[in-house]
């Protein structure tokens, strides 16, 4: 399991927001949103906050840190 996991896909689906719409809101490419959702890229703190704000949830509801996960 990766050290940083996220619930972006579920939160996005609940709000019916597409990957491109989320990407536009936080100022990244759609490919970066895909990489974050697949736990293959850990975003910067700034982008993580932007994602949480765009989805209207606290940061820790979006991202979780597992100290035993591999990075």
């Amino acid at each position, binding site marked *: 399991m990766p050290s940083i996991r996220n619930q972006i896909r579920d939160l996005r689906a609940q709000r019916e927001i597409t990957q491109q719409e989320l*990407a536009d809101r936080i*100022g*990244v*490419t*759609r*490919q*970066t949103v*895909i*990489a974050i959702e*697949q736990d*293959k*890229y850990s*975003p*910067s703190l700034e*982008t993580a906050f932007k994602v949480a704000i765009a989805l209207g949830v606290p940061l820790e509801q979006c991202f979780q840190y597992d100290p035993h996960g591999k990075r």
Partner: protein
Amino acid sequence: MAGLSYREKTLYASLVVEILVYGPYFFLHRQNSVNNVAGMIIAIIVLQVVLQLIIAALTRNRVTDERDRLIELRGYRAGYLVLASLMVIGLGMLWFHATVGHLPLDNPMMGLHFLSVFFGMLVIADITKTVTQIAAYRRTV
């Protein structure tokens, strides 16, 4: 190509240009004049500019973000490591041949040979950089 980001498209274009221009230069034994090197550099610049303009015109979303910058840095690091390694090997071989005494430094073609060798190192480092960046995009980092 539709699933690729703007940066990925430009990287594939760069790789195609590098292979199209450097390939014939090195594999068809044309590294025998300064004019060929100058012509190749001009060809690279012209082809790159044309292809980048076409890609920019055809791509609506030209956003680059932190992941693009990270991948770019990884590519430059890989390219630098390859260039530094090749330089050390090249200088070591030069020192060896100069010490043993088989290096015909009075040969008028030596300068051109050195130019070709060091230019070849730059080309290998450049292609390494581009391939590393493409691989990072494919792995999604």
